[in-house]
């Protein structure tokens, strides 16, 4: 398809505008964070639920598993902030001739989280930067009566000097602790990426189903019988990865194990896969299950954690997960080429290729707590049947292990190592990328945290691109 240069210029501007809007829309937050609203509601410290925020401790997990409620039916007793009634309990007797009663928080349930970073790049092409702010989050969460809960987030994040906006809304039906229905943003990955202590993400969650760009072939109008033109193309649709939160519906639940210790957690969901306006008509599905041996009950209860310190919970958890989906990406590119058929002698050659790739991810996770040490990790194997539109199937393997050592309640040492092996050039990187992330977390106050972190690449292609980050994180 050939157009004149003016058409091309307009087309390019339009494409850039669309691409920018798409980038804004596609920034995906994950609904897992420290939520100061609950500190106010229960008049308690962040450390009730977090080791070092946003990482959850044993109680924080039980609180979440109970649908953002205190365990063992004690939520009303522990709520210090008087809720606003939306109808007396007795109206349940009058249903369907009356509204079912509920209540909401007594004050505006919004908290704020701010993140600032100082970034130092080993690669001399980038300057040291004061990224103030890196991120600002408005967080809302709470319960609506006995059987609904909600989570909302507006996240503004700096991405190369462009402030990107993401929103999360979740409404959850909580008829029983072992059965919840979550509608809105869902997170198919098993270890919550949003609860990590480091700035860097878990590497298995960054494996995408399709490459960032493709070189597509087109007939050369100046020499139709000769070699084809190679035109770089890009896709405006989300390129799927496990890390991103998705629009979907999830059924999930938890149950205590024998004696009230440990227990089972499970989830199964259906999701768009690629953004709020899905890129195809197929829905992705996923499931995960995990069992925790010993330790505090998944729903609360059981033996008190070792030494009753808030960061301890001697236990071992193992789980499996699976994801199956279809990613669709339309790669579009163009170039200016000599064209004798045009009056000016030049024209634009455009190419377009739709890639529909069926893929699945299976994997396992573990989470081991022993006194002041927590070691956890994940292995994922991703199989793409046609990620480049060539008919070639591709497998990717990735894993990581992280150790968090609580030296003092306010000082946590972190060491993470991970590998990602891909046998196709999604990135201009080697087949196996090796990540090392040492970090130290200083919790100055329960709601103010400083993290010094190195994001290192140990593979040859990644050398020279280490990043050093000092992150300042606070919430109120």
């Amino acid at each position, binding site marked *: 398809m050939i157009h004149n240069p003016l058409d091309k210029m307009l087309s390019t501007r339009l494409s850039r505008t669309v691409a920018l809007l798409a980038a804004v829309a596609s920034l995906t937050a994950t609904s897992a964070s420290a939520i100061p609203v609950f500190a106010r509601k229960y008049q308690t410290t962040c450390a009730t639920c977090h080791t070092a925020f946003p990482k959850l401790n044993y109680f924080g997990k039980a609180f979440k598993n109970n649908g953002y409620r205190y365990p063992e039916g004690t939520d*009303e*007793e522990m709520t210090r902030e008087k809720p606003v009634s939306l109808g007396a309990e007795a109206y349940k007797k009058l249903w369907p001739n009356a509204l079912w009663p509920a209540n909401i928080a007594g004050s505006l349930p919004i908290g704020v989280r701010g993140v600032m970073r100082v970034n130092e790049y080993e690669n001399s092409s980038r300057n040291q930067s004061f990224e103030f702010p890196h991120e600002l989050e408005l967080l809302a969460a709470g319960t609506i009566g006995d059987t609904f809960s909600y989570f909302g987030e507006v996240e503004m994040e700096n991405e190369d000097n462009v402030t990107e906006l993401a929103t999360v809304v979740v409404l959850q039906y909580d008829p029983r602790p072992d059965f919840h229905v979550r509608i809105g943003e869902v997170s198919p990955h098993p270890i919550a990426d949003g609860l990590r202590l480091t700035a860097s993400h878990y590497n298995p969650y960054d494996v995408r189903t399709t490459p960032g760009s493709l070189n597509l072939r087109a007939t050369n109008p100046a020499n139709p019988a000769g070699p084809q033109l190679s035109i770089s193309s890009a896709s405006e649709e989300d390129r799927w990865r496990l890390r991103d939160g998705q629009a979907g519906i999830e059924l999930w639940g938890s149950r205590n194990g024998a004696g009230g210790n440990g227990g089972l957690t499970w989830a199964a969901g259906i999701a768009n896969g690629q953004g709020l306006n899905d890129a195809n008509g197929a829905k992705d599905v996923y499931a995960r299950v995990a069992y925790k041996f010993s330790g505090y009950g998944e729903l609360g209860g059981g033996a008190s954690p070792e030494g009753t310190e808030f960061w301890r919970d001697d236990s071992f958890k193992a789980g499996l997960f699976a994801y199956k989906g279809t990613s669709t990406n339309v790669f579009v590119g163009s170039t200016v080429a000599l064209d004798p058929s045009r009056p000016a002698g030049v024209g634009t050659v455009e190419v377009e290729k739709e890639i529909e790739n069926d893929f699945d991810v299976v994997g396992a996770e573990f989470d081991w707590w022993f006194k002041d040490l927590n070691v956890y990790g994940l292995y994922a194997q991703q199989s793409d049947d046609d990620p480049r539109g060539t008919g070639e199937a591709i497998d990717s393997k990735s894993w990581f292990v992280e150790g968090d050592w609580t030296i003092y309640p306010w000082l946590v040492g972190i060491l993470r190592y991970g590998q990602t092996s891909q046998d196709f050039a999604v990135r201009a990187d080697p087949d196996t990328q090796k990540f090392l992330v040492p970090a130290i977390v200083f919790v100055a106050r329960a709601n103010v945290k400083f993290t010094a972190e190195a994001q290192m690449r140990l593979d040859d292609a990644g050398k020279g691109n280490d990043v050093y980050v000092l992150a300042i994180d606070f919430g109120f």
Partner: protein
Amino acid sequence: MKTMTIAVLLAFAALPLAAGDIHGKVACKGVRNSADAVVYVAGIAGKTFSPPAAHAQVDQKGMQFLPHVLPVLVGTTVDFLNSDAVPHNAFSPEDCAAKFNLGTWPQGQSKSYTFVKECVATVLCNVHPEMEGFVLALPTSYFAVTSADGSYQIKDVPDGTYTVKVWHPKLKKVEQSLTVAGATEANFQVTK
């Protein structure tokens, strides 16, 4: 001598039976505090109680039913006063209270209802669905409502053996047999 003996016996007969009280604490688990539990003596076979001539009162003030929980003897008339500057209504969805609906009335006025049956009557205001109160029409006049720390005292209970019940708006009922001999302590725990 015989006359004197008869006179003494008659004098003792004229005295009321020995009476004490029932006191103690109700621990309410799963709610914010231990207020609003009603501790009462269940019906006593062969013994009836006359309802008081004076009306009991529930005030609708500050968009609340005050008191939140009101125990009365069966047959008692309760006046529902509106002390707010907005109209209020009072109705009950309970059959035992004949699902009464007293209509809507303005500040300073009250409407009455007589609880003729034993009943745990939820009282609601259809103008303000968040308002909720409870009137317990009980078979005896031996009752008390707990304070926030769960303490209660039922005065002037004749010595004897009774069934004592505990009711709470949100918790399960409990009951136990209790022998009263003077000041008698009875503690309870109610849970969800």
